[in-house]
């Protein structure tokens, strides 16, 4: 049976856009030429997909099953994998590429040329600087800022990289050029910089390494990090092997000497 697309009368959908089956484009939304919307994509009211950037217009791909909520803007040259889900007022700039099942909270801003892996979870009001590289299963909580200019304003460009399974808690600032290792945990409000080892816990305004995630516990519940010990909600079952491999890699990491005295 044919599934019809539901394009609101006052949505503007370019004749040069490729639209999959069962796609919804809400009122006031704009889908530019060169955009490919996969099957079952939902574009909310007043979204703009394929927005030109500095006069350049590359193709933009939104994978199947994506839900893009109202007032979000996706620039041209962006490639987003299947099962994307955004909140409202999200901006994703030119040339950013993301894997499957990325979730981005309201008012978040992902600058251009970023590379983002699978199953990442970004909460609201996150800012990710241009050129950042983010692995799979990375958590960025509200108000996290990922920078890239060590002497603003300047043309110096030192993008951040965040490895698989890392967790960055609310309000943390990731300074230019920082590398966050696999499964590392950046505490709330931390100013992180430099090289953060696999499985490290960093805290405070100097981004000190204070512990290893395997010792992070919640006394009321007995939950213990790494987080994939106790949390897999929202991840499909076929992620289990990847998560288990990641968990083992984090637990096997041994950077104890870096933690001597609790400070780097």
């Amino acid at each position, binding site marked *: 049976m044919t599934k019809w697309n539901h394009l609101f009368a006052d949505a503007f959908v370019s004749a040069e856009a490729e639209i999959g089956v069962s796609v919804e484009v809400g009122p006031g939304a704009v889908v530019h030429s060169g955009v490919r919307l996969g099957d079952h994509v939902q574009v909310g009211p007043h979204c703009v997909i394929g927005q030109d950037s500095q006069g350049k217009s590359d193709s933009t791909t939104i994978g199947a099953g994506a839900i893009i909520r109202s007032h979000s803007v996706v620039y041209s040259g962006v490639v987003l994998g299947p099962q994307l889900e955004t909140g409202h007022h999200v901006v994703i700039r030119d040339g950013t590429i993301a894997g499957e099942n990325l979730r981005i909270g309201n008012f978040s801003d992902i600058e251009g040329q970023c590379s983002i892996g699978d199953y990442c979870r970004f909460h609201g009001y996150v800012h990710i600087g241009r050129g950042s590289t983010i692995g799979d299963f990375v958590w960025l909580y509200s108000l996290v800022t990922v920078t890239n200019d060590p002497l603003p304003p300047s043309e110096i460009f030192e993008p951040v990289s965040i490895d698989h399974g890392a967790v960055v808690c609310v309000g943390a600032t990731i300074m230019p050029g920082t590398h966050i290792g696999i499964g590392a945990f950046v*505490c709330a409000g931390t100013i992180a910089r430099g090289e953060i080892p696999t499985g490290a*816990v960093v*805290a405070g305004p100097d981004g000190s390494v*204070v*512990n*290893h995630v395997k*010792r*992070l*516990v*919640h*006394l*009321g*519940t*007995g*939950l*213990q990090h790494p987080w994939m010990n106790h949390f897999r909600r929202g991840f499909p079952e076929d992620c289990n092997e990847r998560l288990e491999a990641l968990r083992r890699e984090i637990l096997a990491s041994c950077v104890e000497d870096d*933690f*001597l005295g*609790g400070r780097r």
Partner: protein
Amino acid sequence: MISRVEIRELMNAILVRQGKNPVDDEQVTLRDIGFRSLDFSELALRVEKRIGRELIFDASILRGITSVADALDFFEEASRRA
């Protein structure tokens, strides 16, 4: 092995570094003295350093830790088993 007194000294060192008062009453709750989960993790690290072995955490015991005495009991027992 590490004694209960030594574990309490390590706990107090963490509290004092944060400008908090050292604790001598084991019946007070960790919440009351401002000993947070991150501090608990740091204490675990310091105990491991002292005994030279890794502690094994038991979730069922962790769930029941509310007071200073509970925490000291936990680390005494965990270091014995390590």
